[in-house]
């Protein structure tokens, strides 16, 4: 009975579709892969070229001021980063960090405007919401496949997969933040004759700032997790260490690389959170 309808060729359709896109947009994807790939290499190399001691000190100083002149995060950063250096993972750390930085930056650049659009239009919200659900619930590995198809292997497909996986929180929180601005403030802004742009920049975005920052924090953390997974398609960094330990069943090296990721995650998380708190008051 259930076999009455033959298997619907969804997988084939998606494959064909991806192939078509790869061919049709080769003129776009190839330059992105090359130019952007070069830029990524360059920025990662730049970070690697800076002496580790300077980076550690700068991070510690920033941590000190960003937490309101408290010493805790600064000390943690110094010890954590030194430990990673000590374990010989400094270069990998720099690669992972530059990937996360660029992936999150792109996510925010794309996510905030889309969130604004969603908050302004019911139609946009109805269309974009299910797409966001889809993007977030699809297992992250699945994105790696078309990413490789479009951009082959390396950093660029890693960024691409990260964009898809990590942008939704920024979009959602931007939408939420703007919709949460109290009606009276929106009315006040309108009543004094604001244009839409004035209202957005003088009232809505400043009022939604802390909510948007919470979304960005999520995006950054998701980027980090995706960048680690992206080592499966050749993205360099701490993730690659974990992957190779897995393939060679080296528990010790895997653990050390894992700790490195955790340290980076904690530092990034505390930085974005404190940035948010500082902005909020």
């Amino acid at each position, binding site marked *: 009975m259930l076999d009455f309808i033959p298997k619907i060729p969804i997988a084939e359709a998606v494959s064909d579709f991806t192939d078509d896109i790869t061919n049709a947009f080769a003129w776009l994807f190839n330059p992105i892969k090359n130019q952007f790939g070069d830029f990524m290499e360059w920025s990662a190399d730049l970070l690697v070229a800076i002496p580790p001691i300077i980076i550690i000190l700068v991070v510690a100083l920033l941590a000190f001021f960003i937490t309101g002149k408290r010493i805790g995060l600064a000390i943690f950063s110094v010890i954590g980063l030194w430990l990673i250096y000590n374990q010989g993972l400094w270069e990998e750390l720099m690669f992972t960090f530059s990937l996360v930085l660029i992936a999150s930056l792109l996510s925010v650049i794309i996510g905030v405007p889309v969130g604004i659009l969603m908050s302004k239009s019911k139609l946009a919200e109805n269309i974009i919401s299910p797409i966001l659900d889809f993007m977030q619930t699809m297992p992250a590995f699945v994105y790696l496949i078309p990413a490789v198809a479009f951009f082959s292997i390396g950093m660029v497909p890693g960024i691409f997969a990260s964009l898809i996986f990590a942008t939704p929180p920024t979009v959602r929180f931007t939408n939420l933040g703007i919709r949460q601005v109290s009606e*009276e*403030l929106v*009315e*006040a*802004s*309108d*009543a*004094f*004759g*604001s*244009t839409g742009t*004035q209202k957005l920049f*003088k*009232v809505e975005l*400043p*009022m939604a*700032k802390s909510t948007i920052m919470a979304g960005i924090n999520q995006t950054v953390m998701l980027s980090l997790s995706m960048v680690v997974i992206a080592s499966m398609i050749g993205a360099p960094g701490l993730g690659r260490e974990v992957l190779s330990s897995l393939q060679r069943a080296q528990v010790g090296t895997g653990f050390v690389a894992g700790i490195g990721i955790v340290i980076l995650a904690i530092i990034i998380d505390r930085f974005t959170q404190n940035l948010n708190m500082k902005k909020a008051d």
Partner: protein
Amino acid sequence: MPVIQVEGLSKVFGKNTKEALKLLDEGKTKEEILKKTGNTVGVNRASFEVEAGEVFVIMGLSGSGKSTLVRLINRLIEPTEGSVMIDGENLAKMDKTNLRRVRREKLSMVFQKFGLFPHRTILENAEFGLEIQGLDKEKRSKKATEALKLVGLGEYIHQKPAQLSGGMQQRVGLARALANDPEVLLMDEAFSALDPLIRKDMQDELLDLQETMKKTIIFITHDLDEALRIGDRIALMNGGSIVQIGTPEEILVNPANDYVEKFVQDVDRSKVLTAEHIMKRPETINIEKHGPRVALERMREVGLSSIYITDAKRNLKGYVTADDASEARKNEVRDLNEILKTDVPTVSKDTTMHDIFEVIHDSPVPIAVVEDGKLLGIIVRGAVIAALAGEGEVNLNNA
């Protein structure tokens, strides 16, 4: 020439607004229309005019449509039907650009919960309207500072709103509205969120400011006492319709229907009615013509134990009592001046009954209502009591 003319202004919330308007024409109530069409009538054909410099109060209980009405005036809510004329322009029909211009130049709004921007300082809040208009920093800061001084906030201008008390915050709201120098101030329950003492202070201050500013103010409130205190005229709303428009006295004394009557019955009439409403035409004796004998006679005629004495121009001189007059007649005194008493209890025609009590309770004679030394009328105790009881003694024609 009215500044604002509102004509047949209606708002129906929902999809099938045409049918709802048709049902309204047939005289169906808000509830019936909601049941039949699923549409909510916010405001039903409101029409009124507001003169320049007038404080026009729109008053009603929650759900009466007053907040919707004020938002229809500056089109924060899009009207379903009707027109709002400001200086000959129909706000309800104009395009976005013109609407923004009118909002920037002619209408300012003060909000119930203040509507201040928490991320801006007091000064930046007061500057908001000017900033939107594109004024440069120096000019707008000067104007906003002036407006803040006007409402008594010279010192706290670099603090954030959250650091100020409610009363102070609403002063900022008022300053923000005044900084634009608008023709019309829309005040939506502006003082309702304040505690009673502060509220009264703010009302007084608004009235003081109004003395000098002479703005046209449309003031929304659910508090009848507030409406009576500050309104030159009051529009009473119920179920989306305006049920009566009139001066505070007219509404108190001649309620248009049962609803208004029920509404105003608990009002402290002693704070609204004035001497003018309850005074009577005085019986007087002309001091230049008559003596104690005539005075005594007149008192006997009208059944009073004292009588007021004036000159030929009705300037109040004093009063004589019946006892003194009969004494004088026995002693053959001819001149009223000899028995004239000058410790006359007087009030002006605008004195409220509340203040009349204090004069009348220990006065042996009726109170004289005086203007520029001339006697306008007298108030006897009976009239005060009758007026408080809400009975027919009150005469609006005096006003």
